[in-house]
């Protein structure tokens, strides 16, 4: 009678790792597509307020960001703890907005300049004083399309 030989001379079969790169590549491409390179380091602390009536900002290149918040911990000694405005990489004043927006505008094509949106990314705990100053300056400059960055809210008020 024939005997079944078990585990003799066979050992565990080697698992082929050839498909591993494929899996990793899929993940890699996913992250490459969704990734947004951080363009500026945040020097102010910004926690967005919550809202429900949100609209997505479609084209990143058409958006200029205006950050408003209390300077981050490591800048407090130098800049104090009153809310400040950050444009690009540095603390700025309200009067610097004009130059900033002109620079942002010059990066765009002629046809797209009217479509520029100013995204106000303000911390939810700042007071309206500084936000109003920014809004007034934006109106004077003529940058009327504004977006108040907020996170989606799910619970009721």
């Amino acid at each position, binding site marked *: 009678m024939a005997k079944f030989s078990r585990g003799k001379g066979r050992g565990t079969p080697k698992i082929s*790792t*050839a498909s*591993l*790169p494929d899996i*990793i*590549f899929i*993940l*890699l491409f996913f*992250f*490459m597509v*969704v*990734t*947004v*390179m*951080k363009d500026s380091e945040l020097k102010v602390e910004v926690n967005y*307020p*919550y*809202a*429900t*009536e*949100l*609209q*997505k*900002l479609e084209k*990143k290149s058409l*958006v200029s960001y205006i950050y*408003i918040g209390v300077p981050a911990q490591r800048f407090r000694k130098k800049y104090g703890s*009153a*809310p400040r405005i950050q444009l690009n990489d540095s603390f700025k004043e309200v009067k610097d907005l004009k130059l900033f927006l002109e620079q942002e505008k010059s990066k765009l094509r002629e046809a797209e300049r009217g479509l520029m*949106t100013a*995204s*106000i990314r*303000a*911390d*939810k*705990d*700042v*007071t*309206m*004083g*500084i*936000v*109003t100053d920014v*809004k*007034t300056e*934006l*109106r*004077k400059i*003529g940058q*009327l*399309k*504004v*977006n*108040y*960055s*907020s*996170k*989606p809210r799910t619970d*009721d*008020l």
Partner: protein
Amino acid sequence: MARRESPEVNAGSMADIAFLLLIFFLVTTTIDVDKGITVKLPPWSDEPPPEMKLNERNVYSVLVNANDELLVRGQPMRPGDLRENTKNFIANPRKMPNMAETPKKAIISLKNDRGTSYEAYIRVYNELKAAYRELWDDAADAQYGRTYEELELEEKRTLRADIPLVISEAEPTSFGEEK
């Protein structure tokens, strides 16, 4: 000459390279939701706005003070009730004499203090916008049987002409303490 079989390329290190790139993108990635409330600011003019004689029944004054409290037409209100009340004011389904004659004539007047927190301001602004969006949704459902978002651009425009979004912001007061 003896033909040699082409040697198999070891693909094991490919995974390492891919991993390296993957980790790089994992670290730099910020799945950032770029969302917010879009508003259109009124253009600036140096002259004071002309005195307009507005029928008081058409004006819905919303005031947010420095303590983030809400005062609507002189009465305190919870932020949670603002949406319903605003809708009621604009649509005025029971034809109350102290509410908007027609949605076209309704004006929301929003005023805040320089000491109002940004969070409270956004909350109130959001509710006012939500009131309009819900009214548009109702009208779209009644006229076209679809939600407002599903309408064509032209249909949206006619609908918005009937119920125009008018939120007028007054110059803020400066009683409160600014942070």
